[in-house]
């Protein structure tokens, strides 16, 4: 069944259109920055964008920061909200279940399919952003690669020459290898962050027969969560909000890596997936399929 869902994902035009559009946003931003040579000053605009003119190798991180707030959750919610409700609307759901496909199996296959999609999008954004970053934006400091941070930047005496390929948020140099590792960590974390959205949309998808309703429901939950995260009065419930630790991927670019929020982010996403998949299972496996 997982194979069937993956084939459906891969052969669906929507998959590739949304993928292209998501990759297009960072590309357009890179083109504008490359043409005008106007990057936002540090501390303003999207994270890491200030640094990409100096070093295109940092553009994948900047690109992830660009697509994370809206594009990724929306495409994830669309795909996950469509998972069951979409099949119900086209009528294929009843034929799949009469094959028979176990309902729990179908839910799991859908979740895996959505996860695959999310990973596909995040990796595609990173790869295209790296290509555009290196081709259009600043060159990477190839000469400094391989210089270990210890002998590059140890600064008991003032004014030592900077070393490394890029600068971490803590001001320390990172080699290209370290940057690659940390970017990989950020990719994995962002992909996991989207699982919570996917689980909400998937659950709603088993409740309603309208894919649009499930998608909008999940997005409404996200917007509500984003608002509550910024509200000090809601501090009590903030650790339970799905978007509370979304920005923790940035902690991969601190030095040393700040694991606390990353761990909690992974934990809360796991909880959302377990709880909502459980709810989806409880609802869907005993539901009368009348569509």
């Amino acid at each position, binding site marked *: 069944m997982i194979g069937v869902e993956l084939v459906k994902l891969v052969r669906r035009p929507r998959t590739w259109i949304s993928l292209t559009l998501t990759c297009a946003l960072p590309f357009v931003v890179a083109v504008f920055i490359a043409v005008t040579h106007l990057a936002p000053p*540090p*501390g303003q605009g999207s*994270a890491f964008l*200030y*640094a990409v003119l*100096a*070093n295109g190798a940092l553009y994948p991180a900047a690109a992830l920061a660009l697509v994370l707030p809206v594009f990724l959750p929306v495409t994830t919610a669309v795909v996950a909200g469509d998972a069951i409700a979409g099949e119900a609307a086209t009528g294929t759901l009843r034929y799949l279940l009469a094959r028979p496909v176990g309902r729990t199996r179908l839910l799991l296959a859908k979740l895996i399919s959505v996860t695959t999609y999310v990973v596909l999008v995040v990796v595609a954004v990173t790869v295209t952003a790296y290509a555009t970053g290196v081709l259009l934006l600043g060159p990477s*400091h190839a000469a*400094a690669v391989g210089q270990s*941070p*210890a002998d*590059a*930047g*140890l*600064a*008991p005496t*003032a*004014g*030592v*020459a*900077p*070393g*490394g*390929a*890029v*600068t*971490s*948020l*803590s*001001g*320390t*140099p*990172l080699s290209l290898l370290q940057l690659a590792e940390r970017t990989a960590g950020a990719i994995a974390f962002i992909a996991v962050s989207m699982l919570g959205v996917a689980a909400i949309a998937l659950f709603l998808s088993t409740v309603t027969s309208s894919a649009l309703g499930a998608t909008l429901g999940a997005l409404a939950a996200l917007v509500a969560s984003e608002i509550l995260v910024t509200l*000090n009065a809601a501090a009590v419930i903030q*650790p*339970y909000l799905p978007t509370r630790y979304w*920005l923790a991927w*940035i902690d991969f670019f*601190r030095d*040393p890596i*700040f694991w*606390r929020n990353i761990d909690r982010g992974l934990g809360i996403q796991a*909880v959302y997936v*377990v*709880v909502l998949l*459980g*709810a989806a*299972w*409880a609802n869907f*496996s*005993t539901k009368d399929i009348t569509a």
Partner: protein
Amino acid sequence: MKGQVAYRWAAVAAGVGLLCAMPVIASALPASVPALTAGQLRGRILASARLSYAGYAESDAAFGLPSLPGLRDVTSLLDGVTKMRVWQAAPDRWRVDVLSDTGERDTYQLGRRSYIWDSGAQLLTEIRGRQTLRLPRAADLAPPTLAQRLLSETGRQARYSVAPALRVAGQAAAGLRVTPSDPASTIGHIDIWADPGSGLPLMVQIFARGSPSPALRSQFFQVSSWQPDKAVLTPQRGPGTGFTVTSAGNLSGALKNLAGMALPGQLAGRDQLPASQEYEPIGVYGGGLATFVVLGLRGVDGQRLITDALAAGGTALDLPGGGSGALISAPLLNAVIAQPPDPDTVVLLAGTVAMPVLEQAAAALFTEVGL
């Protein structure tokens, strides 16, 4: 099928309940600590200054200060949440990162040298020389630093008692309550929770007099002893970053336009602390948890401070002899900004003492000293 539906939803509900209850259960775990007297605990906390540790702490302050231009770094520290990563190898070898969502501001202390990295400005600043005078900074709010400073300055001017044990950062912590003996102090009491074995302070809460909720809470959420790592404590420069060197004297920011004043040895019945006498423009009076500072600001800066204070919610003040100014009253901190009839100098008095004490001190400055 009816039964099936019920059983499945019951299973899900039980799972949700269990997951939601986990943090509650974890924090409700009994915190059993060995029986320590208040004096023993205070001794251990004061002795913990040389411990090496690393952790993550947050301070949550609600001083209710008006946001004054030029002092924004300080007022933001005293209102709202400050998130800190702390590494300490020794009292003079440490690093504190103040985290924001997309950046950080790191302070390194390496012996007599300190460094500040600002990710927003992409700038590493080295500070040379001893700072005799500086504004409060985030590192002062880390629980061990704050607790040790409070205890060492309080001395005998407070009563110590045992507060109930709590779990802080997953550890059982013994509680110490400090109640100022001076009735003029704005501080009701201070609660400090520390690791009963090592004495490392894990949480500090400062309560204003009569307030049930703390005006300042600084707490570790994660802390452990730490094998000092040179790579962490040493600032390094990444590519594209700037670097400057500055001497400590240039850093005072808002304090750089201080006017020298001849300060009396006693104000409002409180003695000037001997330690503050060597730095002339500033006088510190009282002591322990009822302390106030007096300083003079020159000309335009001082007048702007009064205007800003009034605009930010301060109360207008009239002083005998034609002086005027503003009062700022916050739960923990009171301030008087007063301008004598001769408008060249403005006097700022601020501290953890009741407003009448400050007003009395201001009046005394004008009448007795004849500013």
